[in-house]
């Protein structure tokens, strides 16, 4: 019983982080129809941003997460304005451009920070729910992720700007016909998506070790969540985050950690076959 509660609690805390990890990817995919192969690079830029702000400027790691959003968001805007906007009609070129960007980021980080794994020491102690230990810093990370995710949802579902962004997702041509500048919305979406990826990196940096090439493992989880939740479906993404966190934790505890990736890809495969529009059946095909 204790193990089951431990698994559930672990999964909930992990799900908050996974949600923020996938949110940026989902927005960029939903609005721009761009499969962001640079998502892992943006995540790891956020992690290093927190590292620099905390280590060299003594900024609190959780406050640094907000700065990460700005730093990585600006980098995202530069990438979009610099070359992504010229690749609207050529997905293949865009794919290679994003992979190229990832290689540049990885190599620059390697040159700047070396190959050592970095860690941000955040020890806020441990709470106990009965006999189940809960790391306080992970609770803070969860609250941060939930707040950022909630704020993004509010903007998307409760403001005119959000409605316009969602309208671009649904029907770009009609949006253009009613006089909305879809190019500006696209720039905004990529900037926000990149910023959220940076924030996710900053949050992750508070509880795992990372190096210049660590982004891929997290990007894979984010891609799986976006597919399971339905392409562009933010609520679906939230549910998928919990499903993936629960699956990965439960498979490790009750079966074997060697089966984690297999289980994740089996779930993705099942969703693609049985529910290609995601868990809520609202995503794009």
């Amino acid at each position, binding site marked *: 019983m204790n*193990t089951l509660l*431990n*698994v559930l609690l*672990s999964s909930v805390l*992990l799900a908050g982080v996974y949600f923020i990890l996938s949110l940026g990817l989902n927005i960029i995919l939903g609005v721009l129809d761009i499969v962001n192969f640079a998502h892992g690079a943006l995540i790891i830029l956020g992690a290093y941003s927190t590292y620099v702000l905390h280590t060299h400027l003594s900024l609190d790691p959780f406050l640094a997460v907000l700065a990460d959003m700005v730093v990585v968001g600006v980098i995202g805007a530069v990438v979009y304005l*610099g*070359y992504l906007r*010229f*690749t609207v009609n*050529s997905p293949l*070129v865009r794919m*290679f*451009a994003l992979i*190229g*960007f990832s*290689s*540049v980021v*990885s*190599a*620059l980080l*390697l*040159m700047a920070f*070396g*190959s*050592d*794994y970095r*860690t941000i020491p955040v020890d806020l102690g*441990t709470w106990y729910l009965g006999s189940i*230990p809960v*790391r306080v810093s992970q609770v803070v990370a969860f609250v941060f992720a939930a707040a950022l995710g909630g704020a993004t949802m509010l903007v998307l579902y409760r403001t005119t700007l959000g409605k316009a962004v969602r309208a671009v997702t649904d029907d770009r041509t009609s949006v253009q016909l009613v006089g909305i500048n879809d190019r500006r919305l696209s720039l905004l979406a990529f900037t926000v998506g990149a910023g959220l990826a940076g924030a996710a990196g900053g949050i992750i940096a508070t*509880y*795992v*070790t*990372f*190096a210049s*090439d*660590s982004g891929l*493992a*997290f990007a894979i*989880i984010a891609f799986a969540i976006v597919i399971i939740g339905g392409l562009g479906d933010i609520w679906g993404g939230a549910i998928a985050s919990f499903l993936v966190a629960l699956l*990965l*934790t*439960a498979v*490790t*505890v*009750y079966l*074997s*950690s*060697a089966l*984690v*990736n297999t289980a994740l890809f089996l779930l993705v495969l099942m969703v693609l076959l049985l529910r290609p529009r995601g868990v809520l059946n609202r995503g794009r095909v």
Partner: protein
Amino acid sequence: MSKAWRRTLVCTVGVTTMSLAVAACGSGSGDGGDSSDPVQIGLIEPMSGPFADNGTQADRGASLCVDQINADGGIKALDGAKLELRKQDTGAAQPAQVANQAQSLIDSNDLSAMIGAWASSYTLAVAPVTEQNQVPLVTESFADDIVAQGYTYVFKIPAPASEMGKQGVIEVLNLADASDYPIERAAVVAENTSSAQVSAKAAVAQLEENGVSVTNEEYFAPGLTDANSLAIKVLSGKPQFLFAQAGLADMKILQEALVRQGYTGPILGSGSALVNPRYAETVGKPADGVFTSAGWNWDLPGAEQFVEDFVAKNSEFDFPGQEAGEDCVAVYAIAAALEAAGSRDPSDVRDALAQVDISDGTGSMVATGRTKFEENGQLVDATPVIVQWQDGKPRTVFPKDVATAEPAFVK
């Protein structure tokens, strides 16, 4: 061609070229060079990526000892020819790619010998290449399989991985017994790399032979994104002793999760993170009292001068890591073979390496005090060095005749 298309093409080519250029700057590689004066030794190690800590230690140790030999007049039998390392960074490549890298290192240089490639899976991929090209390979890898393939060009310095796991368990169980801490249940958590699995399985066999029940045996892929679930699983059988092995990054979050989930008992590992000079500073308090089997330790007899020179040259470290010492011994063994052969031809160097017998000076700073290889390439009488972290440093506690500290039992 439309303007937009031209711009797209220019952008794409630009980004791709930049990425290739920057990537090339970021990683060391064996550039081609003439084979005139210096004797070239290939060094293929993971100097970036997840195993970079270990690969760069190997590089630091080998480079230092190459400098020492050169400063001492080079290879006298070759008219004072200097040694020169030709380096290849494997990065985080797959073993098949590492085999290609090894072939490329051989093709683009005029190597007399090679040293590498740290991860046993890498060395198992490189060995067929060096064998086929008839270039001797001196390795710091653990896996038993490396010297079980009938290769004649492979020479292995550390004890076999199976001995690492077995001997470590015997020592910790003896110590637990003497400390009135009965161990009835144990668990294993290790990364799924070749040598880690061999060590872990040998540990399991030894535990079972001693009547200890192994409640969980978990092997995970390196690069953990969450260690909490792993800790819950491993501790579900309430073990009183853990065999744990992982790279430094994974070990840190794994040990944090184990402590959080309430584990305070003894931990034994085998190499990897647990012999990394940065282990104690990275993991913090949970590092104290942890045992590990190692191929080499900085406090072994004969290593004093090497340690002093290493720390002087690499002031960010208080002592050299396992790989630094092993690769220094590898360089001295190759230098001795070059002296004996009087030739830089790799086949002659191989024949001389098979006869090398060093029992004094830096070249002999292994646990047995003797650098000589058996017919299969394994160091003669190679024994694991059992080390315990005490006050931030790994101290040799076994074999007794070279121990520098008494093992302390942490319950």
